[in-house]
Structures are given as C-alpha cells and as structure tokens.
C-alpha cells in the first residue's frame, strides 16, 4: 500500500502495470469502510461478552462515549495532518502544556479564566505554527521535529509549573472561574431536560436521590462531534481539503500546480495544536485542575485512531469520519475490556490484540469490498 503507484506505473513495462492496476482497485473503496466494519465487530464482541455488566446502560454508554469523544478531538487533528503527509507527536505534551497555560495564569496570576483560555489557545496555535514552520523550513521528517517538541513541551510544563506554582498539579481552577461561561462551555452537560424525561419514562436508570443516572451529554462529546464534522467537511468539501490531499499525496506535484504546500502544512500543525487545547480545556474545566503528566501517550492513541480509520501512514489518503470510528473502536475496546472483568495484568495485551483484530478485519473488509483477495 505504501508503494508509490506513479513509480510503478511509469518505470515498469506494460505487463507489470496491468497487475498494479488491479492492486489499486482497493483505493476505490472509501477509507472509512473498514473502520465501520471494525466498529460493528467490536460492538458484537462486547455485546456478547459484556452483556449485563452495565456497559450498555446509560452511564456505561456515557463512560465509553466520553473516552471516545476525547480521543475523537485529537484524532481529527491527527487524521487531517496525516492526510497532509505529516505527524505530530507533540499532541500529548501539548495537552499537558495547554492545561497549565490555563491553570497557572488563572490561579497564580489572577487572570480572568476567559483570558487564560484565550491565552492558552493563542499559545498553542503559536507552538503549532512553530512546529509547522520548522518542518517546512528544515524539510526534516515531522516525526523527528515533533518528537523534539514532545520532550520540550513536557519539560517546559514541568519546569514552568514548578517555577510559577512550585508544584506539578495546579488545583482549584474552578474556584477562580466563578460562574464564567467557559466552564459550562467546556464541561457542562447538554440537554439535561431530555435525560430527566428519559429517566422519568424509565428508559434510563435513576440514582437513589431521584436524579437520572446520566445528567446530560458532556460538552466534550459535543465538541468532539462538532470538530469531527467540521474536519470532515473541510477535508472532503473545500478547496483547502483538496490541498491537504495534494500536499500529502505528492508535495512536489502539488507545488507544481500552485498549491501553497508550506502554508497548508503549517495550518495543519496549528489545527492539531488547537485540537489538543480543546481536549486540555475540557479536562481542566471538568476536573478543575491541570497536571504536568496529563496527556502522556495520547499522541499515539490519536495516530492509532487515525490509522484504524483508514489514514495511510504515507499521507494523501484518509478521512475524518474514519478517524472518528477509529476513536470509537479504541474507546469501546479500552473501556469494554474493563467491563468484561478481564484480569488487569493482561489489560494492555488484550487492548493490543483487540486493536490488531480490528485493524486486520478493517483491512480484510477493504479488500473484499474492492474485489481483491
């Protein structure tokens, strides 16, 4: 899949090319098809093994939906960037750093929470811009450049939080936030009335105190849907989206027809930083604290979700819808294993096996759909 078909077609004699042509038929299929099939498989599996454990009760669904949503937010950014032909390994560190950019000014500098949030977004966009600029200017692989950012940002998060706060967990953000609109914007619960109605109607459970077992859709879930939807529209229905495909598919070719490849890539790095900051803001507002170790390893989860969703590691191919389903598979598997009560020591082994199964199945479906064995 990673071979460059241009090379194969141009450089090989005629008979070789015919073979190539059938291999490329799979490209006709939509990239997200396999991920959707994988999602069905995962739900069938847990429908059978986690039946009756509360996984599919309202608060169980809320649990894995929340995990899916937070992954969707960063997977969307990662998918767009991967289609654009680059990686960002600094997403996890960015989450930790952005959280601190909100918490420290609010708690220690006395800034209004709104200003802190805007500051964090501006700071993140600047860091994303710098990531992109270094990649574009130096022409180094983004893997290496953002690996450096991973360490720099994580280190700065620890160093600056010790410097300003003398601790690595900054708590009490909510006490300073008061009744600012940013708290419900990032951590509120939507449609509470609907859930009270559902509970009264007996469709979802009630707590002993009479509240519904789920009080509303968390803001993070809404952010995730909004970001994924906008990402999908931009990628598939706009000029910029076409430029993303072009920049990732063949940057040189894109440049030759006037696509501003450098600008596209820099913007995409800013988008991943933006997504990481949305993630961080939701987390800070929900938990009321920022910690220097937030978001560790999340960059890999984001890339895994994008790959399960059909993004090629080599760029130029993929979809945001696929990344969403990739995040859903990851979220459901991650939480679903806990619901089945599997022994904890083996958790990561199961997680790896389930993901491998989902990806293999994903590939298998994609091949079948395109008539290739």
């Amino acid at each position, binding site marked *: 899949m990673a071979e460059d078909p241009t090379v194969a*077609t141009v450089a090989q004699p*005629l008979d070789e090319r015919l073979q190539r042509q059938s291999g490329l*038929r799979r*490209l006709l299929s939509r990239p997200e098809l396999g991920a959707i099939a994988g999602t069905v498989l995962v739900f069938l599996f847990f429908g059978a093994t986690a039946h009756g454990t509360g996984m599919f009760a309202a608060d169980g669904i809320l649990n894995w939906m929340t995990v899916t949503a937070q992954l969707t937010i960063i997977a969307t950014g990662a998918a767009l960037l991967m289609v654009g032909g680059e990686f960002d390994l600094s997403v996890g560190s960015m989450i930790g750093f952005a959280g601190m950019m909100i918490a420290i000014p609010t708690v220690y500098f006395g800034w209004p929470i709104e200003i802190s949030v805007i500051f964090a977004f501006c700071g993140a966009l600047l860091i994303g811009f710098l990531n992109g600029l270094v990649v574009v200017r130096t022409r180094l692989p983004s893997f290496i450049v953002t690996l450096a950012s991973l360490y720099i940002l994580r280190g700065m998060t620890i160093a600056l939080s010790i410097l300003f706060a003398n601790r690595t967990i900054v708590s009490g953000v909510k006490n300073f936030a008061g009744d600012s609109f940013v708290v419900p914007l990032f951590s509120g619960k939507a449609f509470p009335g609907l859930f009270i109605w559902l509970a009264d109607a007996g469709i979802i459970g009630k707590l002993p105190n009479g509240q519904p077992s789920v009080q509303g859709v968390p803001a993070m879930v809404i952010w995730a849907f909004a970001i994924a939807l906008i990402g999908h529209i931009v990628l598939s229905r706009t000029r910029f989206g076409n430029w993303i*495909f072009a920049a990732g598919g063949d940057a040189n070719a*894109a440049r030759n*027809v*006037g696509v501003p490849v450098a600008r596209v890539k820099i913007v995409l790095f800013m988008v991943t930083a933006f997504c990481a900051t949305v993630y961080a803001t939701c987390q800070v507002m929900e938990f009321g604290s920022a910690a220097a170790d937030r978001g560790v390893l999340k960059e890999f989860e984001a890339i895994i979700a994008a790959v399960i969703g059909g993004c090629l590691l080599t760029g130029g191919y993929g979809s945001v819808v696929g990344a969403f389903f990739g995040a859903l598979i990851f979220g459901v598997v991650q939480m679903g294993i806990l619901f089945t009560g599997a022994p904890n020591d083996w958790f990561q082994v199961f997680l790896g096996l389930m993901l491998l199964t989902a990806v293999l199945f994903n590939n298998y479906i994609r091949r079948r759909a395109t008539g290739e064995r």
Partner: protein
Amino acid sequence: MSESVSAKPALIEVRDLVKHFGPVVALNGVSMKVRSGEVLCLLGDNGAGKSTLIKTLSGVHKPTSGSFLVDGKPIAFHTPRDALDAGIATVYQDLAMVPLSSIARNFFMGREPLRRVGPFKFLDLAFAEKVAREEMKKIGIDLRDSSQAVGTLSGGERQCVAIARAVYFGAKVLILDEPTSALGVAQTSMVLKYVNQVRARGLGVIFITHNVRHAYAVGNSFTVLNRGRTLGTFEKAGISIEELQNLMAGDKELQFLSNDLGGTV
C-alpha cells in the same frame, strides 16, 4: 504544410539563450521558436541541456543572457506562475498528479472550482467531475467515474489527463517533457494521437524527447540540442528519420550500431 505553419507568428521564440550555473555552462546559445499549430520536437541525448531549457522556458530558471520573446515581445519570467499566466504550460515527467486522489480532484488541483453557500465556499465537486469526464471524453477516454483515483489509470491515460488539464486551463504553448519515455507501444500512440489533436486545435507544442521515432511521428520541425547548444532546426520535409538520428547522436557510431543490430535503435 510546413510553409503555412512558418507564415504564422512565433508564440515563443528564444535567441542565443545562455544559462550558467556558477562555472557550469548548461546552455550555450540555444535558438528556437514554436508557432501556433506546430509541434516542435526538441531532441537531444542525456545531458544535452533539455531539462535546463524547459525550466528556463517555464520560468523556473532565469536565463543568464539571450532573448526570450512571447508573441514577438521580449519578456522575463520571475516565477513559474508568470509563465502560466503567459499561456505557457509545462507537463513534467512526474505529471504533477497525486495518484491517490481522484481524477476530478487532480484535474482541478490548485485551481479548484468553488460554489458559494451562504458565507462559505465549498468545492464544486459535481462541476469538477463533470468537466473532467467531458474533457477526458474529448480525448477518447470514457470514464465511468471521474472520482476514481488517478493511480488506477494507465501511464498513457495519466499523461493525457495532464495534457488535457493544461489545455483546459487555457495554455497556448504546451511543453511536454518526455511524455512517451516510459510508455509501451499502445500507450505511446494514444499520447501521440492526442498531441496531434492538440496541435490541430492551434496550440503550439514543444515536445521533448530522445526518441526520434516518436518525434518524427508528430513533429513539424525538429531542433537538435547537443552540449548546450542547438545544432540546427529542420522542417520535417527537409530531413529523414535516419539523418535526424545521426545528428542527435553527434556522430555516426549509433548508425553503425543500429545497422549491426538490425535497425532497432
């Protein structure tokens, strides 16, 4: 036929073009011109300066000295964009296509058609697919689905898409960089047929190749490059395929070899 072509004004003309890269002399006095409805074949072996000449004509390099006329007026290109604006489109060997993207998306890559919905502008994919399908049909390639990936097309078809794209976006002069070099017989004839069709529509074509047979099949005139200078320009009526072959090789060796091998070179 060649007389009637000669009477028209030259779309592009260069005289005594020189290009130095530091101490390296890449072009050392190249003169040539191409007129509307004419295929000028630029022949030369590897290292003859073909690539440098193309890049100079398409605005990538600036000539060190010499004159460059478009429609009889001197001009200086600073960027490839300037050349495009002047109606000079270059189809490079890599074709500037993304194999994983659809034909329609490739056709409009960098020049996407937009449709306004409220305050937003969206890609007009329906229009792009319609145009791509129609333009390909004109060449005789019937696409059932122009949303299929370019990678699924044959090499010749891809070459034709690249040419059709340049023509659609208003090229007056087409520079084709070795369009047939990696193609088989059937694919080559498809491309050559299309080149002829484009010429008949009144475009000027600069056809770069080192294959004399391909050149002779479509060319009206031939300019031979050797070691950065032109060895001369010949009308088709005034030169045979063998003479052209010898001229390009720079001496008679190849001709002997060709005879030894039974004329297969």
